[in-house]
C-alpha cells in the first residue's frame, strides 16, 4: 500500500482517476436528485421525506470523513507517513462542511416533524460535538507553526475524538432520544425510498472523494512550491 501512497505515485494515479470520478459524481447526483423528487409522500412524514435524501448522506459522509481522518492519523503517528498527514488535514474542512449540512438539513426536517428546530438530545448533541471536533482539529493544525509538531498534536486529537463516532451511532439506542432510530439497514424504510437514498449516498460519497483528492493534490503541489522557494532563498 505504501508503494502507491507516495506523493509522486498519488499525483499520477489521482490525475488519471479524477475525470472519471468527476463524471460519475455529476451523473450520480443528477439521477439521485431527479429520483428524490419523484417519490410518493410518506404516510406519516409527507413530502418532508425528500429531506432524507440529503440529510442522511451528509451525516454518513461526515462520520466517514472523521473515521478516515482517524485512520490517517494512526498511520501518521505510527509510520510517520507524510501523505497520511496531508490526507487527514485536507479532509477536515470537508468533514466540517458535511457535518454542518447534516445539522442544518436535520434542523429543517425537525421543525415540521417534531415542532422544533433543535433539541439537546443525545444524537443531535453528539453530532454537534463532531462539528466542534472538526473545527478544533483544523484550528490545532493552524495554531502550531512547526508542521511535524502540528501533525502529531492534531493526530492525537483526531484519535481521541474518534470515540464520538460510536456514541453518535448508538446514541439512539443507548438513550431515549427525539431523533428516530436506525431505519435503513433494519428494513423499516419503504422500498420506494431506497433507490433515491442509495443513489444520493453514492453521489455524496463520490463528491467527498473528488474534493478530497483535489485538496490532497493541492497540498502536495503547495508543499513542493514551498520547498522550491526554500531552495531559492
Amino acid at each position, binding site marked *: 500500500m505504501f508503494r502507491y501512497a507516495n506523493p509522486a505515485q498519488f499525483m499520477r494515479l489521482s490525475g488519471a482517476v479524477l475525470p472519471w470520478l468527476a463524471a460519475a459524481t455529476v451523473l450520480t447526483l443528477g439521477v439521485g436528485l431527479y429520483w428524490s423528487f419523484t417519490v410518493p409522500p410518506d404516510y406519516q412524514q409527507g*413530502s418532508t421525506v425528500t*429531506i432524507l435524501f440529503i440529510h442522511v448522506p451528509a451525516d454518513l459522509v461526515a462520520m466517514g470523513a472523521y473515521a478516515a481522518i482517524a485512520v490517517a492519523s494512526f498511520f501518521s503517528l505510527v509510520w510517520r507517513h507524510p501523505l497520511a498527514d496531508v490526507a487527514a488535514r485536507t479532509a477536515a474542512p470537508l468533514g466540517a*462542511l458535511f457535518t454542518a449540512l447534516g445539522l442544518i438539513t436535520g434542523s429543517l426536517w425537525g421543525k415540521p416533524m417534531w415542532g422544533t428546530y433543535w433539541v439537546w438530545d443525545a444524537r443531535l448533541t453528539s453530532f454537534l460535538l463532531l462539528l466542534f471536533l472538526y473545527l478544533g482539529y483544523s484550528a490545532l493544525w493552524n495554531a502550531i507553526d512547526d508542521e511535524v509538531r502540528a501533525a502529531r498534536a492534531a493526530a492525537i486529537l483526531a484519535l481521541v475524538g474518534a470515540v464520538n463516532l460510536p456514541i453518535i451511532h448508538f446514541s439512539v439506542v443507548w438513550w431515549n432520544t427525539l431523533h428516530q432510530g436506525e431505519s435503513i439497514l433494519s428494513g423499516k424504510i419503504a422500498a420506494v425510498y431506497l433507490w433515491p437514498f442509495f443513489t444520493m449516498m453514492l453521489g455524496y460519497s463520490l*463528491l467527498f472523494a473528488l*474534493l478530497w483528492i483535489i485538496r490532497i493534490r493541492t497540498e502536495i*503541489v*503547495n508543499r513542493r512550491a514551498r520547498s522550491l522557494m526554500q531552495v*531559492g532563498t
Partner: protein
Amino acid sequence: MIDLAPYAAFILPAYGFSALGLGIATLLTVIAWLKAKARLAKLERK
C-alpha cells in the same frame, strides 16, 4: 413529481443550503488547485 406544498418552506431551504454549501466548497477547491498549479509552474520556470 412529489407535491412539496405543505412543507416547501422546509424542503427547499434544505436543498438550497446543501447545493450552496457543496457548490461553494467545489468552487473554492478548484480555485485553490488552479492557483497552486500556476504558482508551482511559475517557480519551476524560474
